[in-house]
């Protein structure tokens, strides 16, 4: 319509409206670069964001050499999105792309070729595994890889340290407008917690699904308000891949022994009271703790108020039985967790920002009482390595380790004293991911070791008659059993930078001397 009601003259006399535009037609004002010209006026409003192929969508978002793209790792070893998208990007001839995935898993070995061919020149992630990890350790990347915790990655994205140009988000179902989730469809992965942050802050957001459903899709994990395009592919992932061996219930007597000692420490800590909260990581011993806790909750007639983090069937069952009040779920470790998220309204999906960003107004980890974490190596100062192997080569992930250890009232790190012929407890860890001052208790098969910074806990444990063992003695016992390995020789070349959750650099990883 021709607007006769408002004139430039009128606006000139209204404070702050001097330079605003006057209404001319319904779709005259559009954000830049989002609209194509159409015949019909209303066709300008997009009622469908589906694009027929990955190639086309990559063109539409205007991907350029040197840009940053992101992926999530909720499908873990079953992910098919990253290899698919990276294949197309390589085929289209892009170079020097920065890939910021929430983590790289065993499904991402294709990255080695993309790095070698110059398609990818920068990597930022929580974890690196398999051939990709070996390659980066070997210096194939022209730049330094950046390792961040889950909370640290969310912080980096929110704070602008990590600017994502295009986020490629695999979702098990989406409608044509991009309302998507990880719980409906043929390839479910559960929570899309890590991807939520990417969707919120990336310039362009592409949903990739193998199950396009009628509008509107529900539940909405990633809302249409954040999505630019939706692409359908044959298969985004294998649901069974989310379950790695690390999340199965153990019958290993040593892991059960460690779990029992963890439980004893938790009971004696003074924090095991009605309404406490907890998180357990993966690994046989920490998962066994969940099962032992159930018996204690029933015996004492108390409840856990909330469980946080990566969720397993064991926690879903506790929720079902009313022994856990609520679940905050950033990631699912098995299909039992996914099922619970689908059907139980007390099981809430949360973003990585909500989970653990240290710089937001308060993250889920801030009210944790207990966290039970695994470790590759622990040293005399309680520093923990969860990223590099005893051979100095990158092999695992930072995850939520340092985020939860920093915030839980009692952080417990569990590990066997030795693995095979190598000590887990040692003088100096290969790489520090979680600083020792945030680790309260270490539990091995030999007993409970309390950080000297926590004399209060030590006193409580002693009072409860818990078998305590000093760090020095642990190291001595480990040396007695397996001796001292020859130190790994590193070159001066740094291949990866390890950021602490606040963005400060806690360690660097060097190339191993051949």
């Amino acid at each position, binding site marked *: 319509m021709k607007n006769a009601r408002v004139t430039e003259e009128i606006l000139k006399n209204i404070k702050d409206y001097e330079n605003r535009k006057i209404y001319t037609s319904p779709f005259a004002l559009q954000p830049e670069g989002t609209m194509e010209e159409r015949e019909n006026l209303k066709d300008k409003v997009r009622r469908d964001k589906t694009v027929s192929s990955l190639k086309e969508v990559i063109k539409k978002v205007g991907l350029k050499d040197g840009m940053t793209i992101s992926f999530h790792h909720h499908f873990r070893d079953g992910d098919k999105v990253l290899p698919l998208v990276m294949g197309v990007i390589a085929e289209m001839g892009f170079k020097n792309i920065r890939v910021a995935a929430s983590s790289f898993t065993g499904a991402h070995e294709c990255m080695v070729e993309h790095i070698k061919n110059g398609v990818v020149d920068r990597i930022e992630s929580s974890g690196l595994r398999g051939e990709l990890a070996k390659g980066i350790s070997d210096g194939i990347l022209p730049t330094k890889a950046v390792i961040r915790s889950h909370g640290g990655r969310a912080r980096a994205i929110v704070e602008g340290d990590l600017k994502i140009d295009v986020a490629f988000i695999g979702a098990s179902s989406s409608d044509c407008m991009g309302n998507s989730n990880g719980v409906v469809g043929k390839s479910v992965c559960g929570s899309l917690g890590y991807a939520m942050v990417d969707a919120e802050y990336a310039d362009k957001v592409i949903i990739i699904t193998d199950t396009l459903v009628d509008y509107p899709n529900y539940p909405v994990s990633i809302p249409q308000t954040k999505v630019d395009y939706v692409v359908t592919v044959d298969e985004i992932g294998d649901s069974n891949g989310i379950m790695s061996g690390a999340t199965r219930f153990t019958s290993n*007597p*040593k892991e*059960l*022994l460690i779990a029992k000692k963890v439980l004893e420490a938790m009971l004696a800590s003074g924090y095991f009271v009605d309404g406490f909260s907890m998180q357990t990581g993966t690994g046989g011993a920490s998962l066994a703790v969940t099962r032992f806790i159930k018996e204690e909750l029933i015996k004492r007639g108390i409840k856990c108020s909330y469980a946080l983090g990566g969720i397993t069937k064991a926690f879903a069952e506790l929720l079902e039985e009313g022994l856990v009040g609520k679940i905050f779920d950033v990631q699912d470790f098995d299909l039992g967790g996914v099922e619970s998220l689908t059907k139980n309204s007390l099981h809430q999906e949360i973003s990585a920002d909500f989970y653990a960003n240290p710089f937001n107004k308060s993250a889920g980890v801030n009210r944790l009482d207990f966290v039970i974490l695994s470790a590759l190596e622990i040293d005399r100062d309680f520093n923990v390595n969860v990223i590099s192997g005893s051979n100095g080569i990158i092999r695992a992930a930072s995850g939520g380790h340092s985020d939860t250890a920093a915030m839980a009232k009692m952080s417990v790190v569990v590990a066997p004293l030795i693995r095979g012929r190598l000590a887990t407890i040692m003088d100096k860890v290969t790489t520090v991911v979680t600083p020792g001052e945030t680790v309260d208790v270490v539990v091995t*098969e*030999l007993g409970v070791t309390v950080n000297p910074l926590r004399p209060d806990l030590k006193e409580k444990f002693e009072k409860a008659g818990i078998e305590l063992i000093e760090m020095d003695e642990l190291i001595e016992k480990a040396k007695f*059993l397996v001796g001292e390995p020859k130190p790994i020789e590193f070159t001066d070349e740094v291949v990866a930078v390890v950021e602490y959750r606040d963005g400060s650099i806690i360690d660097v990883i060097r190339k191993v001397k051949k």
Partner: protein
Amino acid sequence: MKLRRSMLFVPANNPGIIRDSYLYKPDSVMFDLEDSIAITEKDSARCLLFNMIKKLKPLYKEAGVETVVRINSLDTEFGIQDLEAMVRAEIEVIRIPKTDTPEDVYEVEKHIERIEREAGIEIGKTKIIVAIESPLGALNALSIAKCSPRLIGMAIGGEDYVTNLKTTRSTDGVEMMMGRAMIVMAARSAGIAAVDSVYSDVNNDEGFIKEAQMIKQMGFDGKSLIHPRQIELVHKVYTPDEKNIKKSLRIIKATEEAMAEGKGVFTVDGKMIDKPIIERAQHVLELAKAAGIKMGGDE
């Protein structure tokens, strides 16, 4: 007195399990060179166990876990070699399988003594446990139990025993009754430990506990075990209840008082206390202590 509530079987070809077994705190660990080791693995298992025992002895000792080895029968080509290695490794106890007569023990004893002498080990240091695995062994139980000062215990090997009896194992264990009875009677007569057979259904806790309760009531000191998780279960069965512990504490206190006063006969809770009652009270307190029960006072 050394308790033998739990004797954990550990195949001697798995270094990880040999290294870790003491962590589960059984009263004894019985490393097996016999039935769980394939003929082709006998040498390597023996060699591995020899080296590991030498290395790990202090850890086992510190944890108070007795080391036992089940050797191959001296009828086989492996028996003597097992003895040569294990006595030299200074394992605490040699378990002789398939013992039918006192002569079986004499034979082993003769070799042990020779090896101890050759290796400069104190003569008599290496102890023996016999396993009765046949009706003949059961019938000879008393003469076997009394045949050697090295003998500290007698066990029943259920599978072989039942096979030799030409029957099978049942849930109520009626086929084991005679053998068990002979062995516990013989062991008690000789003042040595009586150790029951394994319960092989690892996942049946209920059945295991039932059997453990029965053999405890029969008079056995404990059971042979095939999985670490059974340790806690059997120890629980052998843990005296609070009432029993309190009563035993009162008996021991009254005994000490009576001795101080030079009294021969005295009563507790209106009942006369004599030697067997005192011995029983002492045993209850040993079991309670082993179970980690704190006994500060008598109430």
